[in-house]
């Protein structure tokens, strides 16, 4: 979607994503990249309202309405930057010429946002693999063959903890 002056308007990606809303956060799983993200309230509000028709000022007004507090456009730009880096936008947003890079720190320092209202998109990484599949040793995994029924199986390896039995070189399987 393009605005009259040729600038693209941000549009949230919808395909191949799974979402779950929890209190104060939106969890998003990218089925293509197999990555999960956690969007805080501010980032989630911006993302949900990116419909390819709203400008950055529209998004700031929407955020302001939904959160009952004034929202600066710089906050929207920061959110869009993070959403774009996480491949959660379909349309790349054209930044206005001369707009300096916006960092979280600069917004807090300028008093534009507090740490709570700062948009945040973080990748969800399990601190330790906590899969509930049947664990196997590296040798059992190594003994499997990609071409066997079931292939390498993707079972968690234990030990090493955190690894999975996946395809190795030349039809072999390995814990990695």
């Amino acid at each position, binding site marked *: 979607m393009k605005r009259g002056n040729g600038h693209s308007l941000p549009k949230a990606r919808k395909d191949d994503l799974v979402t779950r809303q929890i209190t104060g956060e939106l*969890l998003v799983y990218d089925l293509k990249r197999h990555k999960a993200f956690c969007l805080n309230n501010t980032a989630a509000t911006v993302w949900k309202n990116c419909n390819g028709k709203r400008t950055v000022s529209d998004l700031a007004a929407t955020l302001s309405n939904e959160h009952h507090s004034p929202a600066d456009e710089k906050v929207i730009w920061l959110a869009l930057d993070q959403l774009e880096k996480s491949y959660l936008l379909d349309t790349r947003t054209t930044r206005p010429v001369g707009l300096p890079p916006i960092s979280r720190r600069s917004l807090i320092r300028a008093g534009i946002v507090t740490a709570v209202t700062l948009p945040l998109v973080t990748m969800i990484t399990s601190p330790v693999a906590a899969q509930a*599949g049947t664990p196997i040793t590296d040798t059992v995994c190594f003994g499997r063959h990609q071409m066997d029924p079931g292939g390498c199986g993707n079972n968690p390896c234990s030990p090493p903890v955190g690894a999975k039995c996946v395809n190795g070189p030349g039809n072999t399987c390995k814990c990695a």
Partner: protein
Amino acid sequence: MFNPSASSGAGNLIARLLTGAWRPNPEPLSLSPEQLSITAPLLLSTGAAALAWTRLGTFDVTTNDLSDLREGYRKHLIDAAVHELEIVDLFKRARANCIEPILFKGWALARLYPDAGLRPYGDHDLWMPGQDLERFYRALADGDDYAFCVEPHITFYPQYERSFDDVMCRSQLVSLNGAQIRVPGDEDHLRFICLHFLFHGGWRPLWLCDVALMVESVDSGFDWDRCLGGNRKYADWVACVIGLAHQLLGAEVAGTPVAKRAKSLPRWLTEAVLRQWEKGPGMSFAENFSFSFPRRLLKPFALARSLREHWRNPIQASVEMNASFTDAPRALFQFGSLFLRLPEFFRYFGHEIRRT
């Protein structure tokens, strides 16, 4: 009767933390930062982080350990959403090939929890007749690559004493995202998860939460004779696992036929579970001495560690030796299980030597 709150140690702390954690509004619990730093890695590595979080989450997140548990909850929740898509896809593929599997554990249990993120599962255990297996693999290979973990089973432990047809007759269809997913009847499922807990040496506290949840969810129509039917020894095994859920996690068993047994478990059983929880992830029952012996020979420390890992805990040794759960010491069964696995070890060793 054993009282986990009166003892110290990581196993006891985990038991305290998970007490009632499967209930909709579990009682909040406060642990010291030291206690948290001991238990958090164990909870994360055994998949019980989210459950623990429900009891600790009402407090401000001030430590890395609490943040890790919270992150575990997020991970489980979003993974569950993805797994649900996979399950629907699996049943669609199976049914398109005239296969009707039964889904055990995983989502079949997770759906009973108050929140989808509380009970993680990494693979999908499907039971199907042996003649359907090849067709099922072909169904999986059709079309897009599947990257998820499916574990088809054509048999279960003999001690389960249930045939596929028998379980199928009493199975139930449960709705998931508009699809009908076949899961076992509650009686057959409870029996299965109790045996599964024993055959894996009880290393995952989450499994005992599953048992506690199922026992507390049974309604007046639950057929205990069906659940405990068959060989009396195996019925006692099942009763002992329910007893563990009662003694270690506070599961309510009043009014059930296992209430009396639940109060008088052999001391070695509760101790073995707590010791295993303190150690973290354990060895699968199916694994004998399967590790790369020639490679480990060059690293004596790694060899010693591998051998130690393959020493069965009293629970696994007892089920492997088909022993009753009496008060008798378990060392004999542990040695017995070691000897029982020696032929397999030598067979595997020969294979490893040839391969190396």
